[in-house]
């Protein structure tokens, strides 16, 4: 039951992009086509889950035991940067087709606040490791869901007659606002 609340809470009620405003840059940047949105969603999901596990272990077994909790921000961002590098190298060697698909998105992920945000939230909410992993996976699904829906909307917007002043970023933001309004309908669920 507890896990169900975490899953529904993270995917629908407190959607990481539309309700918590984490990962807005890729949300606006790579949402022009559904296919690239799926690629980005997959790459983020992969790194997000991996980063949450590693930062959780480091926080609880190294930083807390040594009394270095104030180094959290510096350590976490370095771990994420190293992890992204590592994933890129391994993927290139092990699965070239997957590297082809996700490769261009990987360098962008280091500065995606969704990764660092979820890692910090997992520590803040005092989850245990299993809850943390469930939380990370749900957030990754939530991110991919928002990205793919939004890419669908933007593909349609391309063919519409948008007023001149609103073309480009403004209309994308307003569409995102309306999408966020739709997600508010879930707010009573948990």
């Amino acid at each position, binding site marked *: 039951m507890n896990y169900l609340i975490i899953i529904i809470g993270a995917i629908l009620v407190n959607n990481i992009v*539309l*309700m*918590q*405003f*984490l*990962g*807005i*840059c890729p949300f*606006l940047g790579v949402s022009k086509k559904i296919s690239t949105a799926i690629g980005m969603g997959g790459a983020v999901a992969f790194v997000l889950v991996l980063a949450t596990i590693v930062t959780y272990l480091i926080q609880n077994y190294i930083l807390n035991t040594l009394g270095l909790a*104030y*180094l*959290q*921000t*510096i350590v976490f*961002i*370095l771990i994420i*940067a190293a992890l992204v590098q590592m994933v890129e190298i391994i993927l290139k060697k092990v699965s070239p087709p997957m590297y082809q698909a996700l490769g261009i998105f990987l360098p962008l992920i*280091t*500065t*995606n*606040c969704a990764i*660092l*945000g979820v890692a*910090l*939230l997992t520590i*803040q909410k005092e989850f245990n490791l299993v809850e943390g992993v469930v939380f990370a996976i749900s957030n990754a699904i939530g991110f991919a869901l928002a990205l793919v829906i939004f890419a669908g909307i933007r593909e349609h917007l391309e063919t519409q007659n948008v007023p001149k*002043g*609103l073309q480009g*970023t*403004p*209309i*994308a*933001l*307003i569409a*995102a*606002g*309306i999408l*966020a*309004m739709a*997600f*508010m309908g879930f707010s009573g669920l948990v």
Partner: protein
Amino acid sequence: MNQWKNFTKGFIKENPIFVLVLGMCPTLGVTSSAMNGLGMGLATTFVLVMANIVISMVKSFIPEKVRIPSFIVIIAAFVTVVQLMMQAYVPALYKSLGLFIPLIVVNCIVLGRAEAFASKNRVLSSAIDGLSIGLGFSFALVLLGGIREILGSGKIFDIALYSENYVSLIFVLAPGAFIVLGYLIAFINQIRKS
């Protein structure tokens, strides 16, 4: 005159939010009131100025290949300083900004200025560049926060303007952030064109 131009560019001409559309996460996340916007803006300005100064000082010692990780560590150090200072002196503001203070590390504006300006220019120009972009960012956050606060809770900087019976709550909630920013960018684009 040149430094003056360097200082004023951040407000409209190269405004990080309205023109470059960078750093969207804190922009949308913390601007439910003008005060929060101001706090976030000044915290980011501090990090921007200090990181720019240090990076422009050490730029010649950093090997080309590890440039970006080194910049991130310098930025993260100053973010930690801000985090500890705010926790000590303005705990209420620190609490309402929450997660977005440590997330200044991944704000693309800070890394963007380090890479595009501080790694190529002298200390003084880099400091002025940081100040200019930081204050432009703060200006945009206060404007966005102010509009949302007026429409959504009938107040500005916590001073009541009209009865709460007439407010539309949607503007302080998540959808309001996207919609107000969308119209603001459209409005600024129009001004810049004419």
